[in-house]
């Protein structure tokens, strides 16, 4: 039996300096929890947040959820110390902000490997992801996505990107090219793709409209800034009962055809080819991992 599908639908942002949020966020059960040491932490609290996240990562309750830490850029006075702290504390994934080139990932990987060796952590066990926040990052998305075997995903960060593009957030058309570029890079590299945050936490309809769009485009999930958005997102990503029923019929037809040595599969008079069977298996795997849409 194959391993359950690894879901990364929701990546919940938490300010690294907020003790209450860090102590309790696991109860919301996002797929990934991202402790932020960068933009959500003021300059005067960088030292405090780093130590808070260092200790929080070791709490047993966080061993059951994928932990991600957004460190400060390695070009700042904080980045390298952030990295020392979180790799030693056992973080699952380091998220590099403002990634413009593959060399940014190479520099990060070299430091991670040095720290792993220093502290006795298995080399290669710290995974990486990159946030794309500029035109340069979007143009170089493919090189960034394929820069390291440690990469598990790339994320588009909308606000910095639209500023760099000299525009502002609107109906989503301003992100169209960047979303497609990041997504294609991720798919080519066989890693996950994460969409931007939706900042109006009181606009559920707007949030779900954006989720429907990015799901159809092919994103794995979305960065979130409020726990209220988790259930909405997970439900929107869950297959419907009808979709799962159809997927099961497709897989059954494929297995029947294979047992009879037939090359062509037919279901309800429609020809079913290999990509459709593969998609059906993915729908079933998603349903097994997430449950059905309610």
């Amino acid at each position: 039996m194959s391993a359950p599908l690894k879901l990364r639908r929701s990546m919940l942002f938490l300010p690294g300096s907020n003790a209450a949020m860090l102590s309790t966020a696991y109860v919301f059960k996002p797929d990934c929890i991202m402790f932020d040491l960068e933009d959500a932490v003021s300059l005067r609290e960088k030292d405090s947040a780093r130590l808070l996240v260092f200790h929080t990562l070791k709490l047993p309750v966080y061993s059951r959820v994928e932990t991600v830490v957004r460190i400060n850029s390695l070009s700042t006075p904080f980045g390298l110390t952030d990295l020392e702290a979180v790799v030693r504390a056992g973080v699952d994934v380091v998220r590099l902000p403002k990634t413009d080139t593959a060399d940014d990932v190479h520099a990060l990987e070299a430091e991670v490997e040095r720290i792993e060796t220093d502290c006795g952590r298995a080399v290669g066990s710290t995974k990486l992801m990159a946030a794309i926040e500029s035109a340069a990052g979007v143009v170089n998305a493919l090189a960034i996505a394929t820069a390291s075997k440690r990469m598990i995903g790339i994320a588009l960060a909308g606000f910095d990107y639209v500023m760099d593009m000299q525009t502002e957030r609107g109906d989503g058309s301003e992100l169209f090219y960047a979303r497609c570029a990041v997504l294609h890079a991720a798919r080519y590299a066989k890693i996950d793709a994460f969409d931007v945050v939706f900042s109006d936490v009181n606009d559920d309809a707007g949030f779900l409209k954006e989720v429907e769009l990015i799901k159809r485009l092919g994103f794995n999930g979305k960065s979130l800034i409020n726990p209220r958005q988790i259930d909405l997102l997970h439900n929107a990503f869950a297959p419907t009962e009808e979709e799962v029923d159809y997927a099961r019929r497709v897989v059954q037809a494929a297995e029947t055809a294979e047992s009879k040595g037939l090359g062509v599969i037919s279901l309800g008079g429609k020809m079913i080819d290999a990509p459709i069977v593969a998609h059906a298996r993915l729908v079933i795997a998603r349903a097994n991992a997430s449950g059905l849409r309610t």
Partner: protein
Amino acid sequence: MKIVREALAGTLESSDLMVRIAPRDDELEIVLQSEVIQQFGAQIEAVVRDTLAKLGIFAGLIVIEDKGALDCVVRARLQTAVQRGVDAWTADWSALS
């Protein structure tokens, strides 16, 4: 390490604590206020003493106003206050664990 100046870390929000430290010549004085002092006062003080010992701090005034923080938060805030209150921060990561 030696505390050479007054320093502050943390907040008074729920699940956090405020730590104030100040230099003392040769004694360690810990003043602890907590909403859960009856149940957890001894445990919080033990965490404070252990954290300071690992940092090599054996003298100073340590004032803690706890708002129901987890042990890991107590350690983090205390280490931050010490980091801000010493001249040369020499603790390695194993001393912080």
